[in-house]
């Protein structure tokens, strides 16, 4: 609401021929359009190319996995058999619960009417693996299944050791975190990890990743 338009008045005495180059305009706008298209549709491939550029980086020691709605950062890792590891899982979602199961060998499926939902992996990575819980914060529950679990923090009712509750899976409340210390067992090959909470929808919506475990 400022009222005046003065720029025009002065132009007359100070005539300038505007010249902005057609080429820079075309290149600029089309590259922005191309960049947005690439950002939308090709971002995952670009990320893959970048991670391939980095080469094979084997995780050891403290390895952090962040959980978001509905994906993991990172969604691929490389481990080596016999390496001592501390897996620090942190749920960054402000609202949702997340878990992290590791397994392979196909899925147990939900035999329901018209959908094909995956419940959990057939083979549990943590079977018989000694795991130490180093710290925990806002853990909803930790199903130990057949893992050999020792807990440094005082185990509460969240530690579910009874059989029949599914695979080893720490379920974190929003903002929760847990650190698991273990030595990578002699189970080389490609493993998958995923989150199957909330009616198994998180996995169905892309919350998954792969671990390549190299032989020693």
């Amino acid at each position, binding site marked *: 609401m400022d009222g005046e338009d003065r720029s025009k008045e002065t132009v007359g005495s100070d005539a300038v021929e505007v010249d902005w180059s057609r080429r820079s305009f075309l290149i600029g706008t089309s590259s922005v359009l191309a960049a947005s298209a690439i950002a939308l549709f090709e971002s995952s491939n670009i990320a893959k190319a970048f991670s391939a550029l980095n080469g094979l980086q084997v995780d050891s020691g403290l390895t952090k996995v962040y959980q978001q709605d*509905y994906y993991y950062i990172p969604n691929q890792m490389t481990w080596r058999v016999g390496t001592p590891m501390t897996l620090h899982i942190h749920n960054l979602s*402000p*609202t*949702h*619960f997340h878990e992290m199961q590791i397994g392979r060998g196909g899925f147990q499926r*939900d*035999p*329901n*009417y*018209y*959908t094909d*939902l995956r419940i959990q992996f057939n083979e549990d990575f943590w079977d018989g693996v000694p795991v130490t819980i180093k710290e925990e914060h806002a853990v*909803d529950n930790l199903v130990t299944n057949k893992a050999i679990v020792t807990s440094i923090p005082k185990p509460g009712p969240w530690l579910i050791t009874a059989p029949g509750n599914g695979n080893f899976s720490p379920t974190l*409340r*929003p903002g929760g975190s847990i650190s698991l210390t273990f030595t990578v067992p002699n189970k080389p090959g490609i493993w998958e990890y995923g989150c199957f909470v*909330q*009616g198994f*929808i998180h996995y*169905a*919506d892309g919350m998954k990743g792969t671990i390549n475990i190299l032989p020693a």
Partner: protein
Amino acid sequence: MADLLIFGVLWVVFSVLGELGVSAWGHNFYYYTASTQALDGLSASVFLFRFLTPIFVFVVLMLIFIPLRARRRSRDSVVRGKGARFNATYVTIWVTLSLAVNLLFFVHPTTSAAEQMFKEMSPQAEQHDLVVDVVARQWQWFFSYPQYGIQNALNANGNNVLYLPVNRPVEFVLRSYDPNHPYAVGLDVIHSFWIPAFGEKMDVIPGETRYMVATPTKIASTETNPEVRVQCAEVCGPGHPYMYATVHIVSDAAFKQWVKQQLKAGN
């Protein structure tokens, strides 16, 4: 005058054809009805169809007939139209009729059917109803039967399932929270409880309790007709399409049997 006559004849003919079509197909408007409530909605729809058909035919015919009749041919020497810029009779009839039709619609199917629905949902009418507690969470339905002590009705595969006896009013008590994480209110969103064959749906709102009443009229199940299923109708996140449950409408005896079996299974 000739135009008016031709138009009138066409209107009557097409309206009659339309009405015949409504008679032949109208009862099929809901495709599959398995509750009295669906039948109420269906009869309201058929009534609307009956009344709207001549109106629809009138306007569509006008939109086709006039341009064809009044079309300017290349040999026309006169380019101007001849009609009036105002015709009190036409405007009066149009305005009166549209007002009358809308008032009628408001009185007849709208208010009368709504009153019927309110009556079914009144506390007196619900005394002998079967009460089913429905809990919606992202992205699952849970059903419990407090009158029978069933905590969480499950089928053999461990999926949530809804069993209803035929011809007995059911009162669904709808709530949205996560029974596995009742302290995590952040997970609650709006869902909508819908059984297509029952002809009604009701939203499930976090922090509130809503009710829906239905009286099943047919023995059916999701396997025999997929319109008999519980489906979430309000978008509730990526799991929304998977948020459904199977429904079985069974005879009274079969329902009692099912209750026993559920209690035995400790559900």
